[in-house]
């Protein structure tokens, strides 16, 4: 660990550099070393820096080392079957950098030699097939930007505000551009039998993760992807092949994809029965709740971003919907009593994250910040109490209720529950 003084210093730098518009610290907080400030000429202006090739694969500045995936160690028995969270509070725009995309593994990261990887298609097909990675890459390619959200994102907040950070409350989501082949193309290559109704997708990891998907969805917009944001999938995200199931819960996006079986009924695997089913108050559970409902969160300011300054202030946030495009995002400064429409900046893609902003002059009074997303189907992100009225508090999965951040007069932000 760093010494406390170093930690304070790097925290100030972090706040100034990485945490978004609302967290911009005043200039005096940046004055760590007056030698580098005007009228002095800093050392880096006198001396040569590293030449090219020193960093063959570049990484962020050493001053950005706080922008990393983080874990909640008490949450799970072991890191191999666990989750790490995207640092949403420190990111902007709609694309998540590959190195900080959240992870959810059930038996650790499979380290697969791509030369040995095979994808098998069999079951109710005319011609069972085996593809190499090279085979898959020969098919016509498509590029699509989609969000991927774990069904359990925000799952720790069902009973009330628990984790004090956007990274932990909402960080099981990321949004990247995938390159791959439509699953429909591969299924067509094998030839579907008339009674084909479902597919089973299976991973090559030590969990052999397995989920049933209706054929309609498989033929609609699913991809077999091998790249994210231009480069190969990261091992954590399913290298060398993963299934992309736009708008649906992350667990069905099978990583390290090795097999697709075509059948006439679902398989009711452990992951779609004892896990990833939504237990309601009456003790019955919803199954096959694949679609991720519209959701949004203000990423900055949020508890991890640090003090907000009085005066001109901007809120920055993310919104997404598994049902289609985001149509609108509203924000509230008074805990959901009054709403005003936020400004969306950047592209709006089907089943992808959008970035929204709301700017105002803050007089230093306490505020209760909220955002609510609306999608093109007319779905409006509900409040947490509206959601609990229907679902109770035991469902773990699919918590898309409106998040409240309490902006206090001292500029700090905390995760609170409204009543």
């Amino acid at each position, binding site marked *: 660990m760093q010494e406390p003084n170093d930690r304070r210093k790097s925290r100030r730098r972090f706040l100034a550099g990485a945490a978004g518009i609302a967290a911009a610290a005043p200039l005096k907080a940046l004055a760590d070393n007056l030698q580098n400030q005007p009228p002095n000429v800093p050392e880096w202006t006198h001396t040569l820096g590293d030449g090219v090739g020193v960093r063959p694969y570049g990484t962020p500045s050493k001053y950005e080392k706080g922008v990393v995936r983080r874990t909640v160690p008490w949450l799970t028995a072991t890191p191999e079957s666990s989750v790490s969270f995207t640092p949403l509070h420190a990111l902007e725009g709609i694309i998540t950098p590959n190195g900080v995309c959240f992870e959810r593994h059930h038996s650790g990261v499979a380290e697969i030699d791509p030369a040995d990887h095979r994808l098998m298609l069999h079951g109710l097909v005319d011609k069972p097939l085996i*593809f190499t990675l090279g085979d898959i890459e020969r098919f016509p390619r498509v590029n699509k930007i989609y969000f991927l959200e774990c069904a359990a994102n925000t799952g720790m907040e069902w009973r009330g505000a628990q984790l004090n950070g956007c990274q932990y409350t909402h960080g099981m989501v990321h949004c990247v551009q995938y390159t791959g082949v439509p699953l429909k193309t591969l299924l067509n290559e094998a030839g579907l039998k008339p009674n084909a109704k479902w597919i089973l997708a299976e991973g090559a990891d030590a*969990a052999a993760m397995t989920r049933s998907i209706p054929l309609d969805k498989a033929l609609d917009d699913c991809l077999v992807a091998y790249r994210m944001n231009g480069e190969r999938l990261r091992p954590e995200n399913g290298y060398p092949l993963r299934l992309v199931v736009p708008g649906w819960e992350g667990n069905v996006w099978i990583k390290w994809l090795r097999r697709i079986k075509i059948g006439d009924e679902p398989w009711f695997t*452990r992951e779609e029965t004892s896990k990833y089913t939504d237990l309601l108050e009456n003790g*019955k559970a*919803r199954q096959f709740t694949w679609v991720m409902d519209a959701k949004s969160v203000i990423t900055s300011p949020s508890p991890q971003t640090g003090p907000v300054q009085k005066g001109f202030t901007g809120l920055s946030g993310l919104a997404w919907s598994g049902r289609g495009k985001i149509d609108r995002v509203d924000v509230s400064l008074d805990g959901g009593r009054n*709403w005003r429409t936020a400004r969306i900046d950047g592209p709006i893609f089907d089943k992808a994250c959008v970035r929204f902003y709301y700017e105002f002059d803050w007089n230093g009074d306490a505020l209760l910040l909220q955002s609510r997303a609306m999608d093109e189907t007319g779905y409006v992100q509900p409040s947490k109490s509206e959601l609990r009225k229907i679902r109770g508090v035991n469902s773990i999965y699919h918590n898309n209720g409106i998040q409240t951040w309490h902006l206090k007069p001292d500029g700090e932000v905390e995760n609170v529950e409204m009543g």
Partner: protein
Amino acid sequence: MSRWVSALALVAYVCAPASAQERHYNIGLAATPQQISGWDIDIRPDGVGAPPGQGSVKQGEDIYMNQCAACHGEFGESAGRWPQLAQGKGTLASNDPVKTVGSYFPYLSSVFDYIRRAMPFGNAQSLSNDELYAVTAYVLNLNDIVDDKFVLSKQTWQQVKMPNAGGFYDDDRQTTEKRFWNKNPCMKDCVPPVKIIGRARAIDVTPDEKTQRGVE
């Protein structure tokens, strides 16, 4: 003649798979039955896919104690935060639901298929078919689903009655949550003045940098 042609066209249209319009690329090799057999391990609730073999509760007890009990507990009660396998009956509608093989899993296949593909944790797909039947029988016995003398096999598969088989229904959000679709959501004076009733800070379970996994 023209009627015959159009009838034929209709048949072709109805029978054509949804993706028929796309060309074939002749990429990939035929998967042989032998290749498929090594990976085709999934099992459906009706037992389709269950391998040959059998195992008794008694045989399963030895396997369980050696390979499962360290995490799942001698009685399926779980050690630490590992998944609990037994007990929990009658808790699903309570404030503290306990989801186990006996209280929650709807099908025998959901248990057997999972053990077959993913257990023991860290040594997956290492049990023989007979061992799989035996250890599954023992887990069922821990949940009082089968008696001490039970022998599980493809033949006795349908005798196993899972207590929560009727506990699930398909996603109905489009009807039960219809109120969430609203083209004109309220913008002004939508709720009475609200107040803070809970704070994450009060619970104090947010990790700090010292507790991060993989951080020195």
